[in-house]
């Protein structure tokens, strides 16, 4: 093996490692976008368990992320349809709280679905 061979192997290894990072890190449902009135106000990592509070038209909506699933857990709206929607996980899934003007959307770098029919 010459120096050239080693350089080739090193460069190819590096490129492959880079590709792993590039293509494997953005699997399904990586991020949760929280929007208020259509404007994205937060981008939360779906792999981190967390609770997020956001102020909407009526008051504070509470969004929880647990084990890769996101959901509204509390909302000031009267019907609480958003809380009943349940958990989001796959890219493209959305949950909307119309009265409070807050929407959640799971996004990945290469979202699988262009639009959701619900």
């Amino acid at each position, binding site marked *: 093996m*010459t120096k*050239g*061979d080693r350089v*080739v192997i090193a460069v*190819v290894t590096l490129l*492959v490692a880079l*590709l792993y990072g590039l*293509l*494997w890190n953005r699997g399904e449902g990586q991020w949760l976008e929280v929007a208020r009135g259509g404007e994205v106000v937060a981008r939360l990592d779906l792999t981190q368990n967390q609770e997020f509070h956001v102020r909407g038209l009526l008051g504070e909506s509470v969004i929880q992320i647990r084990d890769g699933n996101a959901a509204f857990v509390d909302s000031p709206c009267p019907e609480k349809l958003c809380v009943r929607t349940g958990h989001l996980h796959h890219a493209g899934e959305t949950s909307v709280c119309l009265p409070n003007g807050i929407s959640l959307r799971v996004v990945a770098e290469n979202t699988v679905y262009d639009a959701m029919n619900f």
Partner: protein
Amino acid sequence: MATTQVTVSAEDWRIAQLAALGIAIHVLEGAFPSLLPGVKPGLANVITLTVCFLYGWKAAVWVSMLRVLGGSLLAGTFMTPTFFLSLGGAVAMLMAMALLLWLGRGRFAGLTPIGVGVLAAVAHMLGQFVLAWALFVPHPALLGLLPVLLTAALVFGIINGWICHYLLKRLKTDDVVTAL
């Protein structure tokens, strides 16, 4: 009745024999189930690689194309997706070797068969992948497979390169076929 005289040179024989060897390996390899879809050692590439080192790039083109054509005819995959993938891979690999020879002004830029083998295997895999993407399934999920495929290409490239290196060391230029 007019007859056409076909002269068969020694080099034609060699190419035919090496191509036949490539076909045999190609078909044998196809008979074994693969561990991962799309991942194969590509041992037939050893022949292409060795020929390129011994007899030059043009001979490698002949051997490789004959192998793709003959192999697919024998395996019954001619003009099927498998054939086009195989062809795409072979073309990409030959182009990579041509590029290397051009960069190194005819001497592979100071690389041994191992370095060339790795680059050839990666090119082979990328060629197949690009073709598969363009022709069959342009699905984002396929991209996730790419790093795995390239890792396999890297590993088998080194192994194949090493086999080629070993062959070249052991062989006198003219009796590759008999020695194999």
